[in-house]
């Protein structure tokens, strides 16, 4: 539901990178979206397409990698198991924490610079 405001935040990062690298255009953007982030990739895509008009990312394609989530055991320190929170496979503790499922990360962008 708040995909548009997330995309507004994305474009702040993109503008920063345009200035940093003197990019003429951004041609691709790769996002990692956690499976539990509550973000719907299709809605994110529509918001991105609406927002990019008139920006240096106007021609950019959006690549979305949906990331699985892990649980990390806090009792035995670091055993990681995928999408199966019932109990730690190593020590049986239920004191596990979610890692990664809520991610919303701008992984990388592809930019073009015009030759002088």
């Amino acid at each position, binding site marked *: 539901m708040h995909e548009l405001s997330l995309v507004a935040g994305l474009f702040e990062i993109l503008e920063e990178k345009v200035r940093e690298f003197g990019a003429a255009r951004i041609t691709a953007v790769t996002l990692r979206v956690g499976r539990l982030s509550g973000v719907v990739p299709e809605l994110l895509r529509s918001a991105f397409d609406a927002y990019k008009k008139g920006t240096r990312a106007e021609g950019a394609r959006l690549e979305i990698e949906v990331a699985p989530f892990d649980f990390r055991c806090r009792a035995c320190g670091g055993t990681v198991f995928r999408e199966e929170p019932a109990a730690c496979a190593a020590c049986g503790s239920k004191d596990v924490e*979610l890692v990664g499922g809520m991610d919303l990360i701008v992984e990388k962008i592809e930019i073009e610079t015009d030759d002088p």
Partner: protein
Amino acid sequence: MTRKDVLVRRDLLGTNKEIAAGIRKELRRRGILAVNLLSSPGSGKTALLEALADRLKGRCRMAVVEGDIETERDAERIRARGVAAWQITTGGACHLEAKMVAKVLADVPAAIDFLFIENVGNLVCPAGFDLGEGLRCVLLSSPEGDDKPAKYPQAFATADVLLLTKSDLIPLLPFDPDRAAREALAINPRLKVFCVSALRGEGMDGLAAFFVEALAAERAARA
């Protein structure tokens, strides 16, 4: 023209997380336990706060931040219980963000024990936004159905406490509190589960006692 890949590795919610970390630090400095309440609209967040206000009166000092899309109604209900309340109207936004809470924090008196933050009624979006709270509580009321944890996992996965509310209605409904708790615990085994009725008072003393203990634990961690 040259084309190249640039590694960015930046969190889209990075700014919110930084502000939330600042809030958490400030609350810890002041010795305040903040509790973020998440649920669908109508699960009984405000009624729960009213019932808690009555039970904490004379023992602890609390203040409330109310998040809604429109109106001052919830803050007025809390103030009628003799508790300081601030209303944040998001004007359409579906969740509270840390920067909204940070703005209110300057007005919150230093001499309080609990800051309850009632999020915008929505079981999806608020889960993604850290507000700097010490405890996150998700409410699931009996009329909503015991199948919700698996259908809306985000809120349950990120919470510390699950409150099954409106327990007084359970005899009238096909709602199995054990099933609701089991589904939620399958997503998040750390959840502490309470079954309460703000209206009739069932389970409310136990919940109030839990918050008082959590406050003591928070202050002990600070020392």
